């Protein structure tokens, strides 16, 4: 196992070499130095018990190929769009009431019109959803056109496709929640599209609606799927996706030529 490289610390954070005549262990004197020492000792305490710093260094300070560019940030951008959805979604859930008898619409109207910053947070969630879909497709196009899905990164691609499908399912289930006319009819149409699948379609639409008709528990079912089931799956799969990205390294852009390595070009030993 080769030793992990030490992180490239910026100049300001590197300890200065000891000057002649200075004592061996410099005592912290100014309040800032005391605070810094306290912070370091807390981090050291945790790291001594978890060895997390190795993993963080493995993840954050890995080698990347020459020629990477802004297109390589689209995956992180998608992840931050997801985090935006997660955070704003949790706070929207504090006001939302999945009540099909009219309470759902009223609670959304309350949080939009009355709650402090409610309009902003709801808009962040609503527009963030579209941003996330756009970023996913841009990220996917980057991976496709750069050929980054090829061996050994096929599993990363497959997990990415599952994440895309789950994000679509988030869009579908979230669309119903405001429970206005558009939500209602879009859901009727969407569920019926699922129902046109042969053999299993009717059971799938019954599962989504929690019964033969759009009923009292359809909304809460969509809410539970939207808020708990799929976000958990997405978070877990993002973890697997990132692990594979870090484990396999990222691919160089297709226009970067391989380095000349004379010993690799030998045809006979």
């Amino acid at each position, binding site marked *: 196992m080769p030793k992990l490289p030490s992180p490239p610390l910026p100049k300001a954070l590197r300890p200065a070499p000891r000057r002649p005549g200075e004592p061996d262990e410099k005592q912290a004197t100014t309040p800032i130095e005391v605070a810094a020492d306290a912070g370091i000792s807390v981090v050291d305490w945790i790291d001594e018990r978890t060895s997390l710093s190795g993993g963080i260094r493995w993840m954050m300070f890995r080698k990347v190929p020459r020629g990477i560019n802004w297109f390589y940030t689209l995956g992180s951008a998608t992840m931050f769009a997801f985090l935006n959805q997660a955070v704003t979604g949790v706070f929207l859930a504090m006001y939302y009431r999945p009540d099909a008898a009219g309470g759902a619409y009223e609670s959304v109207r309350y949080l939009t019109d009355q709650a402090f910053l409610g309009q902003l947070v709801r808009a962040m969630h609503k527009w963030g959803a579209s941003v996330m879909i756009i970023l996913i497709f841009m990220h996917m196009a980057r991976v496709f056109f750069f050929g980054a899905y090829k061996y050994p990164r096929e599993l990363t691609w497959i997990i990415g496709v599952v994440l895309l499908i789950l994000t679509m399912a988030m869009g579908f289930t979230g669309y119903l929640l405001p*429970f206005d006319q558009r939500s209602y*009819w879009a859901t009727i*149409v969407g569920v019926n599209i699922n129902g046109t699948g042969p053999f299993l379609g009717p059971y799938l639409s*019954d599962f989504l609606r929690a019964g*033969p008709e*759009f*009923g*009292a528990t359809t909304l809460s079912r969509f809410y539970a799927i939207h808020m708990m089931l799929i976000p958990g799956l997405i978070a877990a799969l993002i973890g697997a996706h990132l692990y594979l990205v870090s484990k396999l390294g990222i691919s160089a852009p297709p226009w970067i030529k391989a380095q000349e390595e004379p010993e690799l070009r030998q045809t006979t030993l």
Partner: protein
Amino acid sequence: MADRHKEGSKSKYTLDRQMPGAFEGETVTRRRFMTGVTHGAGAVAAMAFTLPALGFAIGPLFSRLPWSWQPIGPPEDFTDTTYTTKVIQIVQGIGEAGNSIAYVRKRDPAIDTEPLDQYNHWVALSSRCMHLGCPVRFVAAAERFICPCHGGVYDFRGMVVGGPPVRPLDRFYTRYNTSTGLVELGPRYSVNSELQRFSPRDPGQPLDGIGQYLYPPRFDTASLTSR
């Protein structure tokens, strides 16, 4: 693998392998037994919460929709030349979201060729489009039902004359209640292009040709009770 149990090295009998406490004919070692028990207990524990939760989630697939006959008005409300719009309740307890619309008219023997029985003296059409379930609107001037979503068009009897719908508009059973003197509306049923009755299906599921075999009828069909 096959020669492992041959002479000498490892017999499948614990007695032959000189294990302390081994007895005659025993082949499963304690280590293997404990491994199996631990895995089995883990599987039982996982299923103990997974199976009930799963059954809870898919239970509604097997439920039946309670349906009662709904009075929709006296017979004088309905003529055989145009449709009367009636608001009906499909699902109870969720307010307007549980309502739907039925278009009702008196049966006209000149155009309604399907066999007459006690349930179709009045023709009641469901307003949900048989493409994907949007609400159709009856345009009296054209004598057509028109769907706003994707352009489905139905004629006066609810037969498809244009657009993507896969079958005629669904219908409701109707009957005359002699004690109240009102026309009553029963459960929904689906029809194929010959207006033969089928149990209610979702929109988008054809009932002609191979379509009737691709989409199995649901478990939850509201059954028509006699009185």
